[in-house]
């Protein structure tokens, strides 16, 4: 019990060491690299499971919170010291298990997926680095450590998205992801600074002195800043900005779909299961702060920060779902769906508290990883084809992928009873319904649920039903020779076992996980709060109207989807989308992602250009222009004086003229590029200062 709690730092350390060692390996030692990275991840999973079991034992013997902390001095600066720490609590433990389990499966999947890539060694180094940073975020007991891991994660994500850096689109996408998340990170950083300023510590828990504990929270909640906000709210909002950036919420969602340029396992690992969940996790971690520093009952959600969380979440859920409807790229659809589901998580956090949001996070991680890996398998089978218009009929060609994908799809759509997505989404909708401040999040959530069912049905119909439409266009894959595929099915094949086994495992967990959080047996919530759960079908009875609503909505969504796409399957790859022929303008608008990128191009980027132009211009003006201007002005004065002179008096002003001109030249003489003149200026300044001080000293 205590052994794992005090050695919790081993979990992120192992993949980090693996990454370090792999980084030093030569390129050809890919087998060793794969073994090291996967092995370290496996060990991390074992340790995570041990940690998880330890927290389970914690509340069996009646402890309120099975939280273990280990803090240490990082370095000392003057009299103060900067402290870091590690932490194991149910929230972290469940994340640890999820991250290491999904991570391990994705590592294994990558072995097959990247089998032909010459740079496998580098890839596994980055993967391990990423996993280490993510696990570090989970076990960090200090906002500073969390931030550091958070940034390492950002770097690793950048490296992985741009892994195929020879593709310009990948390089651009990596840069975009990095820069956009950086905007969020500024918020997080500012929040962190503010937190340190206000409480003097960045440790979350420190025996009553941590910044998430009662003393600090009361102090923060009691400190009013302007606008009627408390310091707690301010910090919470800033941290929320960081979470928004990392989790791809509106308005910083633009990077996530582009990030699909990376290899598919990366999309599964980073942009479905783990990294984007870090934002949600951050909000969950600082939840006491989010509630405004006072213990409001969960569900009331009166604090400004929580309202912002819920608002952002609900908006994102619907917005991204709309965009997902019109995408053609199998991974982009999933990407927008991820954004949308993350919105649900925020909605759940904002309206229902930690357990609701986290439950959806966990279930979503599994089925979205499943979907992404399924998509990867499809892409791999179709020779790096990503456009769903060029697929079709894969049901017969890739049966395992089809079956597991269907499980993932139904979980995501929220098909009742057997699929985890149903239970977690239902809880969110339930919480949103009973949320006091507003009914809007609920309405948006229901609309989002409908859209989710709709677009997932569309995707299924396009990819797995009908006839195979590929094999006509030349492919833009990497390293797959053209000759390997022929025949009617274009050489589409089921993926090897190393790729399908993770799929099956993930599908299994998707089916099982839902039962951990049904209203009848809310084990998950109880686990996070440190109670023990009781089986009670009465609660199920109380929840059934909401379940009915969501069942109806999902049925409606799937029905509509099937009616539009499934009835008649698409004839050819170039045929227009049925929706496109019905509502061309709306569809194109959605296809173009509602022009958000263009909006940013036109506003933020343009503004940035303008600002930099203005800066450049100011620079010229101040450094060069001003001097010239002064000179010119004096010359102008001189010229007019001379004209006057010549016109009127014709004598007397010549001298004045010359002296003014000399003055202008004198100013530009200051800026003559001679280092020694500048040094002389420094010296003169020093002398003046010294003499002034001396003067003041004598006479002051």
């Amino acid at each position, binding site marked *: 019990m205590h052994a794992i709690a005090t050695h919790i730092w081993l979990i992120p350390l192992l993949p980090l060491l693996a990454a370090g060692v792999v980084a030093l390996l030569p390129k050809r030692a890919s087998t060793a690299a794969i073994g090291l990275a996967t092995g370290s991840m496996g060990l991390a999973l074992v340790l995570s499971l041990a940690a998880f079991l330890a927290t389970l034992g914690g509340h069996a013997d009646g402890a309120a919170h099975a939280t273990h902390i280990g803090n240490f001095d990082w370095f000392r600066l003057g009299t103060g010291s900067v402290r870091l720490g590690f932490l194991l609590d149910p929230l972290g433990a469940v994340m640890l298990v999820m991250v290491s389990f999904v991570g391990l499966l994705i590592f294994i999947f990558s072995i097959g997926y990247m089998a032909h890539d010459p740079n496998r060694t580098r890839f596994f180094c980055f993967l391990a680095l990423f996993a280490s940073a993510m696990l570090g975020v989970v076990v960090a007991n200090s906002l500073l450590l969390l931030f550091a891991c958070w940034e390492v994660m950002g770097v690793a994500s950048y490296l992985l998205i741009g892994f195929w850096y020879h593709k310009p689109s990948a390089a651009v996408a990596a840069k975009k992801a990095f820069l956009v998340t950086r905007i969020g990170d500024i918020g997080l950083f500012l929040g962190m600074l503010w937190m340190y300023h206000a409480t003097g510590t960045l440790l979350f828990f420190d025996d009553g002195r941590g910044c998430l504990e009662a003393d600090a929270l009361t102090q923060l909640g009691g400190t009013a800043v302007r606008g009627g906000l408390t310091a707690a709210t301010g910090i919470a909002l800033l941290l929320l900005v960081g979470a928004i950036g990392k989790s791809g919420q509106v308005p910083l969602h633009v990077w996530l779909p582009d990030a699909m340029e990376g290899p598919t396992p990366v999309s599964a690992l980073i942009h479905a299961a783990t990294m984007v969940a870090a934002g949600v996790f951050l909000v969950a971690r600082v939840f006491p702060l989010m509630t405004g520093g006072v213990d409001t009952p969960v569900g009331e959600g009166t604090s400004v920060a929580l309202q912002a969380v819920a608002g952002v979440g609900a908006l994102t859920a619907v917005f991204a779902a709309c965009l997902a409807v019109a995408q053609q790229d199998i991974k982009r659809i999933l990407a927008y769906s991820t954004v949308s589901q993350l919105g649900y998580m925020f909605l759940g956090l904002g309206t229902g508290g930690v357990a609701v949001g986290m439950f959806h996070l966990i279930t979503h991680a599994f089925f979205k990883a499943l979907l992404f890996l399924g998509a990867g398998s499809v892409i791999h089978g179709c020779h790096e084809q990503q456009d769903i218009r060029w697929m079709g009929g894969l049901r017969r060609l890739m049966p395992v992928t089809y079956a597991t994908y269907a499980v993932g799809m139904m979980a995501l759509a929220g098909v009742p009873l057997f699929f985890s997505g149903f239970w977690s989404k239902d809880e969110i909708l339930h919480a949103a319904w009973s949320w006091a401040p507003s009914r809007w999040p609920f309405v948006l959530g229901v609309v989002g649920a409908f859209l989710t069912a709709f677009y997932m049905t569309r995707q299924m119909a396009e990819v797995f039903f009908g006839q195979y439409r590929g094999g006509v266009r030349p492919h833009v894959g990497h390293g797959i020779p053209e000759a390997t595929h022929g025949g009617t099915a274009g050489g589409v094949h089921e993926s090897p076992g190393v790729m399908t086994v993770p799929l099956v495992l993930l599908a299994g967990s998707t089916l099982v996980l839902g039962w951990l959080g049904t209203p009848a047996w809310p084990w998950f919530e109880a686990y996070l709060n440190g109670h023990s759960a009781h089986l009670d079908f009465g609660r199920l009875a109380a929840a059934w109207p909401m379940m009915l609503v969501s069942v109806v909505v999902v049925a409606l969504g799937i029905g509509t989807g099937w009616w539009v796409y499934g009835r008649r399957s698409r004839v050819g790859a170039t045929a227009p989308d049925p929706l496109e022929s019905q509502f061309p303008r709306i569809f194109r608008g959605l296809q173009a992602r509602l022009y958000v990128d263009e909006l940013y191009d036109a506003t933020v980027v343009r503004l940035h250009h303008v600002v930099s132009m203005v800066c450049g211009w100011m620079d010229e003006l101040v*450094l*060069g222009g001003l*001097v010239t201007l002064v000179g010119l002005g004096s010359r102008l004065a001189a010229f007019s004086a001379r004209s006057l002179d010549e016109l009127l008096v014709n004598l007397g002003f010549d001298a004045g003229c010359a002296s003014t001109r000399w003055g202008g030249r004198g100013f530009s003489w200051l*800026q*003559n*590029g*001679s*280092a*020694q003149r500048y*040094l*002389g200026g420094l*010296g003169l300044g020093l002398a003046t200062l010294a003499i002034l001080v001396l003067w003041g000293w004598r006479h002051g």
Partner: protein
Amino acid sequence: MNPAQPYLFLAAALFIIGMAGALARRNAILALVGIELMLNAANLSFVAFWRHGPHPDPQTGLMFALFSIAIAGAEAAVGLALIIALFRHRRSVSLEAAESLKG
């Protein structure tokens, strides 16, 4: 006269000589020499204050001078590398050769 004052006067003299030279010489290397002299003057006053200052701190002044020496080493290395780069472009180490960078 207190015991530190001669050393401080010496440091001032060194500083002034260095400054005059750094301002007057055309040769960039010698301007750098002048700046080194000024740095050394600062070091000397650190040590003088450490030895004779009123505040009985056993190490801080020395440490300051020690770090200053280290930084001055780095400064000389980078400065001289710059001069070599300048020489490669202009075939001259005269500071006037570097005056094209003006506003």
